[in-house]
C-alpha cells in the first residue's frame, strides 16, 4: 500500500518509462508533473472564489543528434503517451541542429529525498475557509475589510531520461496572503510553507491589521533619495528580479546580465551574501531540476563579490562548467534562474533600524516591480500596503505611495543595516535592509 499523497514514485516513473520505451529518438527525456490544488479567494470580507484543479502533464524532449523537439500532453492514456513521444521525435527530425546542445545529462549524484506534508494535503476547502473566516473576523474587529487568498497544492514531479537519470519527489505548498483595508490605508501579510500547519492565520491577520491601522491618514512626501528600511517582502521582490536577470547562466553567456565581465569583482557592499539553495529548509525545497539533476547550492554574491551564475546542462557546456541543477522545463527558453534565493542575515531588528534613522521611510512591500534596464540592473516599482515616514528615530505616520527607480547593485552597495530575522516569499528568503539614499522617482495620490 502506497503512502503517497498524490502519486507514488513507481507510478510516476512507470509512466515515464512507457514513453522512453516507445521512443525512436537517439535520446529522450520525460518530465511528469501531477498536481492537485485548491484555492480560496476572498475580498470585501467574503469568499468569492473557491476552486480546485487536478492535472497531470507529460513533457517529452527528444533528440536526434543535435536536433531537439519537445512535445507535451495531459492525456496519459496509452494512445496519448504514444502520441506525445512520436510528436517529440518527429519535431526533432524536422528541427535544425542546435550546435550548443550537449546531449541529455548522464546520471550523477542521487538527488536528496524530499517528501510532502500530509497537513497540506488535508488543507481542504473547509479548513481554508476556516482560516479565511478568522482573518475576516479580525479585520471586522478593527473596522477593516479583508482580501486575499489561501491555497494548498500537492504535486508530484518525476524525471527520467534514456541515459538512466531517474528522479522523483512529492511536494506540498501552502500559502495565505492578505491585504486588510481601512478608509485610506492598507496592510499586508503573507506566509508560504510546505506544511500548512505552520501557517498562523490569526497572527498574519493581526500583522496586516496593525499595519493598516498605523498607516491611516497618510501624508504626501516628496520623491527623491531617502534612507529606506525595506521589510522582507520588499527585499525579496527586488532580489527576485536581480536573480533572474543577473544570475541567469544564459543571460550571462549572451551578454545581457549586469554581471557580464564582472564575475569575481566587488559589485556591492561587503555585508551582502546571496546564494541559491534548493534544499534549505527555510525555503520551499526542491531537490532536482527539470533535467533530473540535483539542485546544488550556488553562491551568487559572496561578501559583495559576484560569484554566480546558475546553469543547466546547455549553459554549463557553453561556459565549460557543469550544471548546477537549475534547468527549466523543456520549451522554456528564458534560461536557468535561481529559484531558492537566500540573503545573509545581520544583527539588527527593524526597530533598531527605525531608531537609527533620523529621517527616512519604512516600506512594507512593493507592487508591480519590473526591470527597466536588465543590463544595468535598474528596477522600478511602487510602494504598497504600508509605507511610513520615520523622523527622529520613530515612525510618525503613514505616507502616500511612492515609485522607486533604482539600480539594484547600487542599492545593495548602500546597505548599512541588515535584519537578524528573515521571511520567505515564494522564491526568496531575506531579512529587512536599511538602504541609504534609495531613489524614489515619483509619487501617487493614495
Amino acid at each position, binding site marked *: 500500500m502506497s503512502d503517497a499523497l498524490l502519486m507514488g514514485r513507481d507510478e510516476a516513473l512507470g509512466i515515464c518509462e512507457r514513453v522512453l520505451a516507445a521512443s525512436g529518438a537517439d535520446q529522450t527525456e520525460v518530465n511528469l508533473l501531477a498536481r492537485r490544488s485548491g484555492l480560496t479567494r476572498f475580498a470585501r470580507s467574503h469568499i468569492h472564489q473557491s476552486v480546485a484543479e487536478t492535472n497531470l502533464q507529460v513533457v517529452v524532449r527528444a533528440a536526434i543528434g543535435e536536433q531537439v523537439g519537445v512535445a507535451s500532453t495531459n492525456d496519459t492514456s496509452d494512445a496519448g503517451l504514444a502520441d506525445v513521444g512520436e510528436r517529440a521525435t518527429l519535431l526533432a527530425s524536422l*528541427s535544425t541542429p542546435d*550546435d550548443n546542445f550537449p546531449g541529455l545529462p548522464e546520471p550523477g549524484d542521487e538527488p536528496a529525498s524530499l517528501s510532502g506534508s500530509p497537513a497540506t494535503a488535508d488543507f481542504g476547502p473547509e479548513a481554508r475557509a476556516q482560516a479565511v473566516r478568522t482573518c475576516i473576523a479580525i479585520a471586522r474587529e478593527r473596522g477593516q475589510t479583508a482580501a486575499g487568498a489561501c491555497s494548498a497544492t500537492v504535486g508530484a514531479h518525476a524525471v527520467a531520461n534514456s541515459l538512466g537519470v531517474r528522479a522523483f519527489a512529492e511536494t506540498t505548498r501552502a500559502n495565505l496572503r492578505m491585504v486588510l483595508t481601512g478608509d485610506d490605508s492598507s496592510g499586508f501579510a503573507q506566509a508560504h510553507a510546505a506544511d500548512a500547519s505552520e501557517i498562523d492565520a490569526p497572527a498574519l491577520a493581526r500583522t496586516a491589521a496593525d499595519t493598516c491601522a498605523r498607516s491611516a491618514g497618510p501624508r504626501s512626501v516628496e520623491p527623491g533619495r531617502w534612507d529606506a528600511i525595506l521589510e522582507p517582502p520588499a527585499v525579496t521582490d527586488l532580489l527576485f528580479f536581480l536573480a533572474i536577470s543577473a544570475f541567469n547562466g544564459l543571460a550571462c553567456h549572451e551578454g545581457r546580465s549586469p554581471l557580464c565581465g564582472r564575475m569575481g569583482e566587488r559589485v556591492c557592499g561587503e555585508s551582502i551574501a546571496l546564494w541559491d539553495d534548493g534544499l534549505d529548509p527555510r525555503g520551499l525545497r526542491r531537490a532536482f531540476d527539470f533535467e533530473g539533476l540535483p539542485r546544488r547550492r550556488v553562491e551568487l554574491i559572496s561578501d559583495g563579490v559576484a560569484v554566480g551564475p546558475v546553469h543547466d546542462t546547455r549553459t554549463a557546456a557553453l561556459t565549460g562548467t557543469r550544471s548546477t541543477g537549475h534547468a527549466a522545463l523543456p520549451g522554456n527558453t528564458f534560461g536557468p534562474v535561481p529559484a531558492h534565493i537566500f540573503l545573509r542575515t545581520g544583527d539588527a531588528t527593524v526597530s533598531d533600524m527605525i531608531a537609527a534613522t533620523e529621517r527616512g521611510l519604512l516600506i512594507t512591500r512593493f507592487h508591480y516591480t519590473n526591470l527597466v534596464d536588465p543590463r544595468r540592473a535598474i528596477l522600478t516599482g511602487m510602494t504598497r500596503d504600508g509605507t511610513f515616514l520615520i523622523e527622529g528615530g520613530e515612525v510618525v505616520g503613514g505616507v502616500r*505611495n511612492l515609485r522607486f527607480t533604482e539600480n539594484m547593485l547600487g542599492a545593495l552597495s548602500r546597505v548599512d543595516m541588515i535584519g537578524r530575522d528573515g521571511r520567505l516569499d515564494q522564491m526568496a528568503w531575506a531579512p529587512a535592509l536599511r538602504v541609504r539614499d534609495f531613489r524614489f522617482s515619483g509619487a*501617487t495620490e493614495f
Partner: protein
Amino acid sequence: MERLTRSAVEAAVSAGASYADARVIETRIERALVKNGATEALVAGVDRGLGVRVIADGAWGFAGTCELAEPAIRDAARRAVDLARAAAPTIDEPVRLAPVEPAVAEVAAEFAIDPDDVPVEDRIALLVACDRLMRAEGVAIASGYVSVLRRDQHFASSEGASIFTERIETGGGLGATAVGEGLACRRSYPSSHGGRVETRGWEVIDELALPDHAARTAAEARRLLDAPACPSGEMDLILAGGQLALQLHESCGHPIELDRVLGTEASYAGTSFLTPDKLGGFRYGSEIVNITADATLPGGLGSFAYDDEGVPAQRSWIVKDGIFAGYLTSRETAAQLGLPGSNGCMRADGWARLPLIRMTNINLEPGDLSREEIIASTERGMLMEENLSWSIDDRRLNFQFAAECGWLIEDGEIAGMVRHPTYTGITPEFWGSCDAVADRESWRVWGIPNCGKGEPGQTAHVGHGVSAARFRGVRVGVVEDE
C-alpha cells in the same frame, strides 16, 4: 464534447447547484523559435480538460479536471458544489446573475490559410532565413518565432446554453539584441509582446513579411549602442504601435474591469481609481480621447463570438469624448451595478480556471490627423513605438514605461535615435494632455498574448486597436545614470 459538458452540468444540479456551467476544452499549441541559427524551441503541446462552475447556497464553486471520463467529470461537479458550500457561510448576499438569452450556436474559426497546411519545415526555413539576415548585421542575439494555437471548446449551462467554438490564433515576430560595453539594446518587429498575434490563420505570418524587416530590425539594435541616452525633462511624447497599445492596456484596460473596481483583485493586482461614482461624469482624457471595448473586431486577439458565460460579443463605449462611459462586466458584476446585462467580458485561461473579467479589444478610436502630420506639427518631442518595460500602481494611476527606442523630433522632423527612453505620468493627467490622435490609415489591432490577472494566475489574450497619439508635456528620461 457536448455530452461531457451536459454531464457535468447535470451532476452539479443534482448535487444541489442552483446554477451550473461547464466548459470542455482541447488546446493544441505549436511554437517554433530559431535563435542564432539553431532551432532553440520546437514545441507541440496538447492540453484538454473540463471545468465546471456552480452556484450553491448562493456562493461560487469551481473544479477542473484533466480526466474526461464520466466518473471523473461527475466527481468534479460534486467537488465544485462542495467548494461553493464551504464558501457560503462567509457571504452577505447570494450571487445574482444579470440575465442572458441562452445561446445555441456553433462558431467556426475564420482564416484564409490553414496553419496545418504550412509544414513545420517551411516554418523553420522562414525563421532561419530571417535569422541569417539579422546576424549579418552583427547583432549578438537574433531570434525569430512563430506560434499557432487551435482551441475547440464547448460551453453548456443549466439555463440551456450550448455553444461550440473553434478558435485559431497565429502569430510571429523577430527580435535582435546588440551587446556593447555595459549595454544590451533590443529591437523587435513588429512588437515586443509576442510579435503580432491575431485570430486568423497563416496569412498573419505572410502579411508580416518577416524577411523584409529582419535586416532593419537588427541594424537598429546595433545603432542603439551608439545612440545617446534619453534626455531628462518634459517634452511632447508621441506614442504609436505596441507602446501605445500597452499604455492603453495598463492605464485604461485594467482599471475598467468591474470585478477589480469592486474589489475582488484587491489583494493581488489591486483595485481601480475608476470607482462607480465616476461613471458617466469623470473626465478621463481630453475631448478627442474616444475608447471602445470591441470583441467583434475581425482578427483581433481579444475577439470571440461568446464569452465564457455564454454572453455574445459586443462593442461598447469606455470613454466618449474624454468622459468615462463604461466598464468591462460579467453577469454578476453587471447585476451588482444595476446594469441590464453583461457586455460579455468573462474569459478563463483554459479549462482549469474560473472565468474572470478580461479585456476584449480595448481601442483608442482613430482621430483625424495623419501620423506624419502629428510628427510634422511637433516642435520638440519624442516618438516611442515598442515597449521594453512597464509598471503601474495598484489603482492604475502612476505609471512608468520604457521603450526599446526613442526618436527625437525637432522642428517637426525625426532628428535622431535615443537609447533606452523612459516616461512616466498619472493616468487622467496623461490622457488629458492628449491633443492629437492619428487617423485610420495607421490604425491597427495589436495583440497582447500575456495579460496576467487572478489567483491562481491566468494569462489572457487581448487586443488593442491604436494608431498614434501625442501627449503634451510628459516627463521623460526617468532613469538616472550612475
